[in-house]
């Protein structure tokens, strides 16, 4: 099963390698990983998408928590959550395909962020499945290059009854 785990950690040198070392050393899988500072500059938030059965995911969260620099570990996929990825795609955009590229990215609510005579660079955000769908549709038109972030995710606010 896919799990999206959110980890708050001390923003110190070497912390990221503690986390990645833990995953590689214990044979845990990393599908994607994103990390950046939080509002508090001393604390980073890392989102890791992994998969494994219940026992493995329990070990992943416990082992992460055991790292001295890890403040909090939440398996956010246990609850309702929103997830986003972003992709930058450079599309071949010659005269006969320019309009088509624009139409497709409009469907995915993407936007053009760079233009040249023969290409468009396009930005699309969304869930991992939406991004994958966009790639699938754009591929036949002619993708020159893609850069894709990992997933970031946030639990949905609890609704008061």
């Amino acid at each position, binding site marked *: 099963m896919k799990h999206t785990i959110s980890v708050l*950690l*001390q923003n110190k*040198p*070497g912390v990221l*390698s*503690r986390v990645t*070392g833990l995953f590689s*050393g214990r044979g845990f899988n990393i599908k994607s990983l994103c990390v950046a500072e939080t509002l508090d500059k001393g604390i980073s938030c890392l989102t890791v998408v992994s998969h494994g059965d219940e*026992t493995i995911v*329990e*070990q992943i969260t*416990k*082992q992460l*928590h*055991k790292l*001295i*620099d*890890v*403040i909090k570990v939440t398996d956010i996929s246990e609850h309702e959550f929103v997830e986003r990825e972003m992709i930058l795609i450079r599309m071949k955009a010659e005269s006969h395909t320019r309009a088509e590229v624009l139409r497709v990215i409009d469907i995915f609510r993407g936007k053009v962020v760079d233009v040249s005579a023969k290409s468009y660079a396009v930005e699309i955000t969304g869930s991992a499945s939406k991004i994958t769908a966009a790639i699938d549709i754009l591929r036949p038109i002619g993708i020159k290059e893609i850069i894709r972030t990992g997933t970031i995710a946030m639990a949905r606010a609890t609704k008061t009854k």
Partner: protein
Amino acid sequence: MGKMSGSQAVVKCLEEEGIKTIFGYPGGAVIDLFDALMDSDINNVLVRHEQGAVHAADGFARVTGEVGVALLTSGPGATNGVTGIATAYMDSIPMVILTGQVPRALIGNDAFQEVDIVGISRPCTKHNYLVSDLDQLIPTLREAFYIAKSGRPGPVLVDLPKDLMASQLTYPEKKDIKISSYQPTYKPHPVQIERACKKIMQAKKPVLYVGGGVILSDSSNELRELAIKLNIPVTMTLMGLGAFPGTHDLSMGMLGMHGTYTANMAVAECDLLIAVGARFDDRVTGKLEDFAAKSQKIHIDIDPTSISKNVKVDVPIVSDCKKALTAINEWFDTKSDINLSDEADRHMPWLETIHDWTVKHPLSYKDDDIIIKPQYVIETLHKHTEGKAIITTEVGQNQMWAAQFYKLDYHRHFVTSGGLGTMGFGLPAAIGAQMAFPDKTVIDIAGDGSIQMNIQELATAKQYNCPVKVAILNNGYLGMVRQWQKLFYNKRYASTTMDVAPDFVDLAKAYGALGLRATTKDEVEPVIKEALATDNIVIMDFKIEKEEGVYPMVPAGKANTEMLLV
């Protein structure tokens, strides 16, 4: 307050932490530190190899329960220490390893004797630091000691750039250490204790399965109280030996791959397994699906990651072992509706079954009138030390025979590399133990292969008048590996014959130690008596039966009930 150098501050901090002995080896990056140590009362032991320093500090920590400290230079000094660090990590030993580092300005430049020891040691330390800021030097060291000894203990490495050691600083006031992201759980949850106690009440065939956590938390007394009060038989892991008296009627000895028939049968048949400070290691469980398959399980451990890692448990208790055992004991003592002696009597049929197993297949060996059997050597050592010696071991058959036949009654008296199985551990660890207890008999039970891995430490022992005794069970083979080849590799003995070995008696002499040899059974006792009566270091070279195997043995991947017996 006046200023002092970084290295003086480090030494002052060590003193503040109560450190009396450290083990080290100098080099360019740590000259300042060794210089500052000259003005301190700290006993600074110069080893002969950095691996020896770390193992010696480890041995010191295991027998005292205090934090062991090693001081190594940068580059090769640090890398030489890595095996020792990994050894301590696997067995959760509280240690602080200080390594020198090149000056900060050179870090990352492939400077002379620069190595990224923080990177290298990351997976085999509980935590580690590169101090990059003078202000952080002492706070970091204090934090390192705190982390090493709190929660589940472990080695912490602090890498110290040389320029910081020469800089001037004002020594900071001692402050309480609080790390928001590190707060081990010490106290058991009362609900879980209640659940555990009720399970114990219902059990007809309980077993206490006890590991190194009981020793690390110094809870042998609490364990003994519980076992005796309720008549619960006890089995110990290699790391748990000594946690419960090995000569007590309730002791079933060690379990697992080379465990006793009784212990493995009892675990297979029990209806309640009470795991205390043990981690369901593969050498203990054998085939996982069949391990204690008929039982409910209670698991007490301070490290949540140990719980339900390999085996699902019914009652997890994240807690210091001592606190949890105390809570369980109190629960039974304060429940007025419980008659303790009835509870204890309830287990009598179970204890009889266990007794029958022991009668049927006791731990045994075929003795010989002339050829020396290793088990006989261990039993004779036990007899003449009255079971009171501190035993360290190397790794291999020697280690297993020591575990099986030196019936330990005291905790912190068995010092062995359990998790990593590090050959070469026993001699330096014995030196560390002897430093801690100069008046005790300390014996390294060794193999002829392992002893050669850190034999240079004999010089350290000599220099510091550490009269350790080394008993080499000399079979001329890397015996344990050979045993596997014999049983599972069609007797194809690849690289396990030590065709050339030193004359250990002459070797002892070369180091200023006493060397003694026994080649027949009748020579064993006189050699041991003479060794124990000698103030000097002694190497006893016992030429043992070369083909002797360690039994019982559970073949790898088999269930523990599928033991090969003698």
